[in-house]
């Protein structure tokens, strides 16, 4: 009986955590809450999320990645069906994904590679005048 309860708890925890959206910033997870503003999404083509600080982030089909060694770039492009759009100094690359719904997952997967210093979606943000 105890094992059964424990199994249910584990499944619950796995489902709960796996359904949570996040990206990595400075090596730490930043959790995101999906926003369901269909009008906004339709007009911009972006998926919108909110951070726990209340910052709205738009995600499209682009990822920014910084590599220790740019030689590995081609293998990532092949593996995730990406397209190189632009190279920024130093070793930062703007890549296009084939499906914007996969952008967050691809960025998070890239983050797990040793050769990747960081990877995150090319977020769209509000520039706040001060």
């Amino acid at each position, binding site marked *: 009986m105890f094992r059964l309860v424990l199994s249910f708890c584990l499944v619950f925890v796995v489902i709960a955590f796996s359904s949570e959206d996040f990206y990595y910033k400075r090596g730490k997870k930043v959790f995101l809450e999906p926003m369901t503003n269909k009008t906004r999404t339709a007009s911009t083509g972006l998926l919108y999320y909110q951070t726990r600080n209340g910052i709205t982030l738009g995600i499209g089909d682009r990822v920014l990645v*910084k590599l220790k060694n740019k030689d590995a770039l081609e293998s990532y492009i092949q593996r995730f069906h990406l397209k190189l759009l632009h190279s920024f100094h130093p070793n930062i690359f703007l890549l296009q994904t084939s499906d914007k719904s996969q952008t967050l997952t691809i960025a998070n997967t890239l983050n797990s590679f040793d050769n990747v210093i960081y990877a*995150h979606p090319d977020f769209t943000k509000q520039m*706040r005048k001060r």
Partner: protein
Amino acid sequence: MKKTFLLGICITFFCFQGCNSSSDNTPQDMLSDPYTYQQWYLDKNDVFYYEHAINDDAHIHLSSLGRIYSGKDVKVAVIDDGLDTNHPDLYKAVIASYDIKTKTTDVSPTYFNDYHGSAVTGIIAARENYIGVLGVAHNVSIIFLKYKSSMTESETIELFDKAEEFGADIISCSWGTYDVSDAVRDKIVDLSHNGRDGKGTLIVFAVGNDDYNLDDYNDESSIPEVIAVGATTKENIRAGYSNYGTSLDIVAPGGYYLSLPTLDVSGDRGENSGDYILYNGNFSGTSAAAPIVSGALALLLEENSDLTHDEVVEILHLRSDKIGNVVYDENGFNSYYGYGKLNVSNILNLK
């Protein structure tokens, strides 16, 4: 009759003082631009200060040494919402421009009421030309980079790349996102270390007007390499709206109920139907304080272009006024005032 005559003389004298003149401690060359007497953030005008109950030290002490320099041969990049490049008070000031949306050099404001970029640029660079107002660094060269109100990280990096490409010594940013990404952070840090031929580009950010503790956010102004600027009022204390925290470097006048006179978009567009925003207008906040510091840094680099990023920051930290009647720690730091308030005469008095 005699009394009426004398009274008339006195009224005429004070009107003249209030409209055109300045105090004894204001050098003659500041008289040239007619609204300079309202620019309470630059220096003290006795009559204007008296009429508006402004603290004697609310300004940045641009007198004496501050007027020897004008930012000549220094390039300041302003990243903002648009600029009236044909404004008469910016004659020959703009040496390069770029619009991230259109990828052209046309940086005119998009919307009828967009005046923010013109106001910010005016505080730095308004010319000494017998019209309007005077910029902190009135001979500086401006690189204007127009952003979009909603922008991607890669576009932000592109604007910093443009600033670098155009040879900016200083980059002035009166905006923020409260959520700087790793890639934008990287660009800013890289420029701060390696820009300006290895001496480090000076990147100035306004800290924001929400009375937030920035230690709880990942703001652009929280990046240690950034020069983070908060705002003070005419009472010479921190403005209640000014964000604070351990990353705050310095404070400068940003106003509250008293606006900072500067440029408006000329004609009917912008903040009002004229060419200028005056003391009773609508331009205040850390957006106004940051370009004051950017202008002051232009004067400093004109005096000594060999200064590195770290040397400049050290000068700012050591030579700012410890205002506010608050306790500064053993390093001279207070989280609401940073290392104190900008004093141009102090930072230039080095040689």
